[in-house]
């Protein structure tokens, strides 16, 4: 049932402003792609274009190779999960789940079997005869997912389905949604503003900014090999160092404020390094560099430290069993394998 989806040069303008600018993207059948980006990046607009709830100004959308860009929403075989649930208040949970089957005139027995299957999968068994106003927020979102997938859509679209739920509830709903999506083997595009969700839920991750796609790839690629400082900064804090490269006998190396590291590649003059907190480790007394703790935040499972070195400041995580206070001096070292080397070519486009 699940389709391969191809988005070709999609553009959409609202009041002359580009909400989507020449977006191209492919979704492999049965995979989950997460769509992240700052608010106003065009994530929801892209989702609504795919659903047919807004029409694009240019470009085409293909489901399994056939163009659907001009079809109204109801003829596209999509499922849509809204942040605000948008359940039909006058219908029972059962009728909400069955809505997509009922409008498609699915036979009674088939319909009932499907509702039973979804009820079990989404843990809604005892709630089928309730109204949406009589169930909790987490339950409503599970019903919303069930309604969106009951008719086996070619593409399932989720618009920040967990954003309205408190964190504890969100994590349990996330599990149910994810396991159901995997069982259904649907092609999924999942919009989230949560970076952690983007990385853990997606087979692939798309980062958008200003109506365009900034980077597409595996979660580890976006986190570990960002193409520019914007992508690097989006997925976590860090410090950028722009440093001269020198050549030694074995290859290229960089003299950083926290020690000397080797870098790969063919001899650029300078290199941009992105140092994430986990790239900085506690060091023994004989190694690393001494830095001064400017601020120490205790977070239970770790300390988060802001430390000053010669010429700058950075943050790092510190083991909870090594008590530390602001003003203390600690020794840290760089973990070379976790240092991110930003490609030079994207420098100009990144600094906007």
């Amino acid at each position, binding site marked *: 049932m699940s389709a391969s989806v191809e988005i070709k040069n999609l553009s959409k303008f609202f009041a002359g402003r580009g909400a989507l600018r020449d977006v191209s993207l492919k979704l492999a059948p049965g995979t989950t792609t997460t769509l992240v980006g700052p608010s106003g990046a065009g994530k929801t607009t892209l989702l609504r274009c795919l659903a*047919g709830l807004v029409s694009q100004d240019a470009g085409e959308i293909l489901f399994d190779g056939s163009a659907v860009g001009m079809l109204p929403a109801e003829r596209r075989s999509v499922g849509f999960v809204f942040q605000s649930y948008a359940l039909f208040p006058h*219908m029972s949970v059962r009728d909400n789940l069955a*809505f997509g089957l009922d*409008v498609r005139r699915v036979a009674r027995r088939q319909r009932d079997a499907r509702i039973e299957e979804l009820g079990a999968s989404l843990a809604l068994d005892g709630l089928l005869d309730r109204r949406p106003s009589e169930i909790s927020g987490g339950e409503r979102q599970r019903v919303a997912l069930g309604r*969106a997938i009951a008719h086996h859509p070619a593409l399932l679209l989720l618009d920040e389905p967990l954003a309205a739920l408190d964190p504890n509830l969100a994590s349990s709903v996330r599990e149910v949604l994810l396991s159901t999506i995997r069982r259904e083997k649907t092609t999924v595009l999942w919009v989230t503003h949560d970076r952690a969700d983007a990385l853990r839920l997606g087979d692939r991750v798309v980062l958008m900014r200003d109506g365009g796609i900034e980077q597409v790839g595996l979660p580890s690629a976006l986190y570990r090999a960002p193409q520019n400082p914007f992508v690097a900064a989006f997925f976590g804090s860090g410090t950028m160092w722009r440093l001269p490269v020198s050549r030694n006998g074995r290859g290229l190396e960089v003299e950083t404020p926290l020690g000397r590291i080797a870098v790969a590649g063919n001899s650029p003059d300078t290199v941009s390094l992105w140092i994430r907190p986990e790239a900085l480790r506690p060091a023994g007394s004989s190694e690393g560099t001494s830095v001064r703790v400017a601020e120490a935040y205790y977070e239970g499972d770790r300390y988060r430290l802001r430390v000053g070195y010669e010429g700058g400041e950075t943050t790092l995580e510190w083991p909870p069993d090594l008590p530390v206070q602001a003003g203390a001096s600690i020794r840290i070292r760089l973990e070379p394998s976790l240092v991110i080397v930003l490609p030079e070519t994207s420098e100009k486009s990144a600094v906007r």
Partner: protein
Amino acid sequence: MTHVRRRWATIASGVLLAVLVCLVVVPLAVVVAGSVFQPRWLGLASESWRSGSQTRWFSYVLDLYGRQIGHSAWLAGLVVLACLLIGVPAAYGLAKGSGPTRRLLRSSLDAPLAVPGIAVAIALIQTYPAARTGGWTLAAGHLLYALPFFVRATGNALASVSLGELEEAAAATGAGKWEAFRRVILPLARPGLTAGALMAFTISWGEFNVSFLLATPTTQTFPSALYLTYTTNSFPVAAAATAIFLAAAIPALVLLQGIAKPETAAFGEPA
């Protein structure tokens, strides 16, 4: 402090209730009782009237005003039908529309309520003289007064849900325009729609100002006929006619009360 305030509120609402009972319930009760028991102090009935049993008074009235009653019922039905045909799209437009269009539509719908019925009636006669004989101006006059109430009631039901979002959900789940209307919009509007239809019925059934001027001898309504009964016939006859009039209006009002309550509670808090 709050205790004292609450006591004053109780007293005030008690007084209000007493006033309402004195002005509405008691006079109606007197009329109805008069039609049944025909006490001497209400005035004397004609000989032919007195000779029959009590239930014959009603058949007497029905014989006398059967045609007008029939016409009023037909007219009220016509008004309800027209309200459904015009009012449902209008209420939907009001619920979906935004800003200036919505304000314009709403005020133009409510405008007839601010114009005296006599003025509306004369304007209709002047502008569409030919339509008067068929009773169509009369129907139009009634519609002008019933429609705002119908649209308000239906529109309120639709405004209590996020209509745009539910329509999008319906479309994205595979429902075309008609399916979405039939399965989502209409059921959501139904509480207001039923209340509005009953309101339109009672408004048309009881309308006097416009009817009195627009009615022709063949299209006279029951309220106009009631007026003639009061001025030309004895009181017991008028009382019996009033009882029959109320017999149709009061059940509609009671039903209206029953519908008005669940309208607000039907869907719980918005999801």
